[in-house]
């Protein structure tokens, strides 16, 4: 739970890491994704927990990504994720399709420290046919035929989220987005960007403690104001639909995407975000 700069945080994500990212309604760190683009990260294997959005499209378009495991990639009302779609078509990334509760279940197995966990449903889906690591077994506790899916525990190398604030102890506060705790528990290290660092200890406040991820799980954090933007951050700020729509238009072409990145990741907009 060391405080560092945003660029140092990006340097703590090794090339080739299995990097877990929450979706656009659950505290993704877009600031860290932009810093990874600036650092020229390579070979990242992204995990959408359980789906992927803006940050994933940005990292794919920037050539940082080798593989994506996710249940969907979308820009919400702005439509299909353009750089993801282009990369799938070009065969530039390996795509491992999943379904949302399967990703949650694999992480829940990891947080419990058990090798696998069962999940209902999924049998008969073609997703299963393309997942040799997923197995259907007979329910060992049933006398009747009862096939059930078992999923292996999944331990991301790194998970990255954007929280509202960190305290003097390195605890971070995620409000009602407590699903981020499962991500923290299952991952080997959690990197967090925050709006601000405050005094005190969230765990001594009954109202803040339930939405707190203990410093036990936090490898490092960095201040990045508006670090979720253009995604919403709880009641701090809303979703910037115009920004995402403008990105979606620009990123329809490789050239348009590069110009967008030049301005919004390397240019003045990025300087403001990194201050």
């Amino acid at each position: 739970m060391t405080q560092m700069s945003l660029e140092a945080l990006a340097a703590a994500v090794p090339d080739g890491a299995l990097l877990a990212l929450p979706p656009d309604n659950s505290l993704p760190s877009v600031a860290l994704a932009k810093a990874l683009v600036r650092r020229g990260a390579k070979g990242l294997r992204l995990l959408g927990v359980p789906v992927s959005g803006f940050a994933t499209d940005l990292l794919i378009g920037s050539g940082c990504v080798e593989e994506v495991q996710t249940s969907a990639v979308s820009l919400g009302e702005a439509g299909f994720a353009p750089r993801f779609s282009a990369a799938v078509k070009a065969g530039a990334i390996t795509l491992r399709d999943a379904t949302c509760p399967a990703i949650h279940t694999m992480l829940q197995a990891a947080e419990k420290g058990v090798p696998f966990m069962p999940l209902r449903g999924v049998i008969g889906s073609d997703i299963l046919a393309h997942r040799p690591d997923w197995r259907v077994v007979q329910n060992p506790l049933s006398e009747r035929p009862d096939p059930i899916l078992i999923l292996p525990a999944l331990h991301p190398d790194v998970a990255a989220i954007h929280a509202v604030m960190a305290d003097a102890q390195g605890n971070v506060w995620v409000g009602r987005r407590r699903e981020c705790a499962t991500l923290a528990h299952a991952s080997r290290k959690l990197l967090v960007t925050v709006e601000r660092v405050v005094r005190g200890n969230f765990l001594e406040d009954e109202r803040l403690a339930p939405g707190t991820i203990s410093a036990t799980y936090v490898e490092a954090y960095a201040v990045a104001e508006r670090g979720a933007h253009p995604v919403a951050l709880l009641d701090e700020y809303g979703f910037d639909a115009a920004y995402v729509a403008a990105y979606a238009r620009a990123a329809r072409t490789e050239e348009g995407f590069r110009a967008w990145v030049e301005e919004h990741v390397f240019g003045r907009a990025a300087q403001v975000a990194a201050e």
Partner: protein
Amino acid sequence: MSAPLADVQPEERLAAALARLILDPAAPPARHIAVGAASPIPAAACWLVSKLDRPVRLSLLHKRSGNPFTEGTRELFDLTGQGRIDLFFLGGGQIDGQANINLIGTGEWPGQGVRFPGSFGSAFMYFMTPRTILFREEHSPRVLVPRVDHVSAPGVSPPEVFRRGTAQALVTGRCVFRFDPARARFTLESTHPGENLATIRAETGFDFDAPAEVPVTPDPSPEELALLRGAVCDEMVETYPEFCARVWGRAAAA
């Protein structure tokens, strides 16, 4: 302010048709319905049921203020696994005559033709909710296909596979189909104004059954229209601002 809306709009007719399916007394009860982000018309149907004073709990996944979940979508799937969600809506880039849905894509795996966003939670929700209403506004041979290129979630399962339910119906911009899981087959229930059996056959890639006389999908009642344009829109404007602006001319509060 918006101009008065005289005519029934297609979105309003679809919402009312979905609301009738939700309230169908022959179907398992819908006490708790979950609705996703990309589903403004299903959300309008659920709010309409609620505003008609029918007892129903709505959990809107993407509601920003007062979101019902404190453990995100993980909690939604756990709730559904427990049997606490009675009805869910699913769509598909492709839907076939056996009610299989494809959110993966067309062509070689994983969508070398057109890649769709992905399966989301469909491969679980379709099994674990007592009923699903399939909804897709586009009704064309490219969407309603004889056989989906890839199965995100199957319409029916072998008897030994645990499954609480499947599709109740498929509602499109042209018609309402009912689904019979025993026969894994759709039957045309009603066509929206301007459509008939021949136009539906021409725009549908799969075979289906039809009665001798196909009724027209009813318009919303005056009471339903007033609710949709008033109380329903009030509830929806925060989560679906673009939809409310387009259909009802309602701007979101700043």
